[in-house]
């Protein structure tokens, strides 16, 4: 198990395959994604009911009720819609993480009270009603406002997962640098809070994305990221993660690394290295 806590990203209704499974109430497809991600080491499963917004509360409830009998890990309820979130919270069994609040008034007012009432942890995005600040300092300012709000609602910092926001490098080649700087600053200013990020957006619009995602993950780990939304079934990113944690001195006696080796995590890249 990596020290980085993983939020498994695969049960997301904006993915066509999952959208179809939700539409057809296909229990097997959803449960398969849930079990496999849990087995691969996810600490939470993100659950996003997707785009049919009037149906979102029903779809989210169906997803939760479909998933929770087959896994033991908590869920990460992913919605901007307070109605869907409230409906989800009524049926969820293990206290979930909430994805997400931001400085946008609608999200703060709609979602934060639910977080406080149900004792959830929460992802807090460093953006507000005017958009995503371009600079590290701008994002920190939003984070300060958000932490002021979560504290005022009685949510302790260690239940807050600040997200510095990864924007695609395709549009701005400095975007990863801004995110990494923001991680370092947030770590210093909010030592009790967690730092989480959706990784894959960094490579949106580019080819061969997994290479970029891996490089970014490793740099973000070094900067202080402790949680990430990613695909735990992606063996290459998981292998890079285990190796990077070892290099960063977070793997006592290299035990995780050698365990991962024995479990066959590196099998494919080994075979490739031998061929090369």
């Amino acid at each position, binding site marked *: 198990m990596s020290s980085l806590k993983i939020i498994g990203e695969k049960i997301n209704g904006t993915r066509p395959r999952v959208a179809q499974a939700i539409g057809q109430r296909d229990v097997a497809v959803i449960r398969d994604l849930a079990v496999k991600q849990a087995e691969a080491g996810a600490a939470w499963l993100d659950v996003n009911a*997707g*785009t*049919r917004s009037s149906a979102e509360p029903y779809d989210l409830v169906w997803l939760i009720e479909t998933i929770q009998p087959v896994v033991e890990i908590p869920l990460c309820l992913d919605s*901007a819609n307070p109605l869907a979130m409230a409906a989800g919270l009524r049926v969820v069994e293990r206290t979930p993480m909430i994805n997400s609040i931001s400085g946008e008034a609608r999200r703060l007012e709609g979602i934060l009270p639910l977080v406080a009432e149900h004792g959830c942890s929460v992802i807090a995005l460093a953006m507000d009603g005017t*958009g995503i600040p371009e600079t590290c300092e701008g994002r920190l300012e939003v984070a300060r406002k958000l932490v002021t709000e979560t504290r005022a609602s009685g949510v302790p910092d260690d239940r807050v997962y600040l997200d510095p926001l990864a924007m*695609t490098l*395709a*549009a701005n080649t400095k975007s990863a640098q801004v995110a990494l700087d923001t991680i370092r600053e947030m770590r210093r200013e909010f030592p009790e809070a967690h730092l989480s990020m959706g990784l894959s957006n960094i490579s*949106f619009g*580019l080819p061969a994305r997994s290479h970029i995602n891996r490089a970014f993950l490793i740099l973000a780990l070094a900067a202080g990221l402790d949680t990430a939304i990613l695909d735990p079934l992606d063996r290459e990113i998981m292998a890079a993660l285990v190796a990077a944690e070892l290099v960063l001195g977070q793997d006592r006696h290299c035990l995780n690394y050698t365990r991962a080796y024995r479990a066959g995590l590196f099998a494919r890249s080994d075979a490739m290295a031998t061929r090369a």
Partner: protein
Amino acid sequence: MSKKLVSAIADMREEEALKLVRKMTAEGTSPVAILDAAREAMGVIGERCEKGTYFLPELIMAGEMLTQITEVIRPELAKLPEIKRHGKVLIGTVKGDIHDIGKNIVSFMLDVNGFDVRDLGVDVAPQKFVEAIRDFHPQVIGLSGFLTLAFDAMKETIEAIKGADLRDGLKIMIGGGQITEQIKEYSGADAYGRDAMAGVSLARKWVGK
């Protein structure tokens, strides 16, 4: 020389493209011919994106080149008699969304293809669209959005247009990375476009050009 300009733009040779534009302008080439070359290059870039050899960064860079080229030829363009426009298109990124790369390219392509375009920018509230329709009298509306929450904003915008009694006779197209036939149905738009040229084709069809 305009063939050279097309390939310079299409191959992302920015400095060469700008040098050519300056040279052509100095030698008296019509700005219309330069814009034609830019349009042709955008077509090539679009095809390369379709084929998977070009990606988002190339599209963004192309957008920047187009802006710079337009800057260079602006004085010459201003001297031309007002070009007869096919029709008016009102465009913007809907409320709650701030993505503008695709929208800007669609705006440019509509513009160089002979439409009178008013671009309202990003995070545009439904009421702002309604006011702009009253003021600008477009035949076509383009709603852009990339986030999933834009789907609701598109629906709300179209409902606001209906509510203001402005929907009749107006054609509405939507676009953005995640837009599908299903979202088109959901939002109440008339059509959706996969890329900038699709947007131009729709607008052309709707105004009968």
